[in-house]
């Protein structure tokens, strides 16, 4: 008997990781989303693919008083985010500096628009110059013309939420 419930799901979502000894052949591309767990109880062998916890799960903010609210994560927190808060803004970026889509960020359209505007402000001010495509100028001082000088942006001029 073999429980292949988890295995078929793994193959469908093109993620496959082998941890057991002797399984070094990958049928599909590896992305390390799931871990294959083999459990043997008597004569029953259960092979299951379990989702790995995300690297952010330990530092994620969880406020119990606003957990029931039906809105996106930023509307729940209600933070006055500025373009200089690069530690927050970089959470919405890929390693090449592109904005994550709404499917991934799970923000409402207003917050997503606001975040992408703030990210572009921070990029223009040269605060996240390493989070950029490969061919871009990493050092803001080497940019062309007026772009090489320091500038800042006023969030109070943005469209209110």
């Amino acid at each position, binding site marked *: 008997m073999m429980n292949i419930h988890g295995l078929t799901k793994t193959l469908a979502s093109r993620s496959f990781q082998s941890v057991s000894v002797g399984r070094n052949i990958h049928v599909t591309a590896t992305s390390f989303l799931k871990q294959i767990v083999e459990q043997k109880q008597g004569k029953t062998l259960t092979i299951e693919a379990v989702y790995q916890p995300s690297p952010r799960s330990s530092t994620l903010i969880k406020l119990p008083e606003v957990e029931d609210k039906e809105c996106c994560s930023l509307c729940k927190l209600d933070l006055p985010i500025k373009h200089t808060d690069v530690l927050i803004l970089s959470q919405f970026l890929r390693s090449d500096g592109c904005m994550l889509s709404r499917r991934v960020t799970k923000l409402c359209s207003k917050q997503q628009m606001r975040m992408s505007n703030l990210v572009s402000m921070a990029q223009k001010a040269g605060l996240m110059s390493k989070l950029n495509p490969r061919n871009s100028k990493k050092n803001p001082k080497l940019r062309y*013309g007026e772009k090489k000088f320091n*500038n800042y942006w006023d969030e109070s001029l943005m469209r209110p939420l």
Partner: protein
Amino acid sequence: MSAYERVKQWNTFARIWHIYDAKWQNPFDSAKVISKHIQGLHKPIYHPLNNCGDHVIVFNSRHIALPGYEWKKRAYFHHTGYPGGASWTLAWQLHEINPTLVMQKAVKWELPRGLSKFGLMARLHIFPDEEIPEELLKNVTSQLRQLRPVPRTLDSYSDKEIEEFPKVMDYPNDYILK
């Protein structure tokens, strides 16, 4: 006159030297503060005919910050006096030629109109970088507070600080990190 009163009198009429770090500061907002100290407007004994202004040393004027697109929108006008002698220099072009001029003109515009400007501007000492002559620096007894916090770039944080910072968004289960 007691010793305390005497020292108070000395301090009142002494010319104080202030220092101001212009790094990431708006020169036009800073000029309002600097011009007040140059004229002595912050003192209770101020009078237009009373020569009670202080000296201000401004350093890091190369690293001033302008809001938005102002580096290319702000133009400095000059006319040679001859026909066709008008010229408009953009702020970033002026700053490339001389990194102290934007700051200097900002303070000059804040001072009252008239001939007193020339005497007052002589009390302003602007330096593009952190090198200040030793004979000026030894006079300094006071520092003017910066108007805006200097922003930190993402590169200035260590990987551990970025990792341990509270996260506002979690990836969905099926998201492949890029």
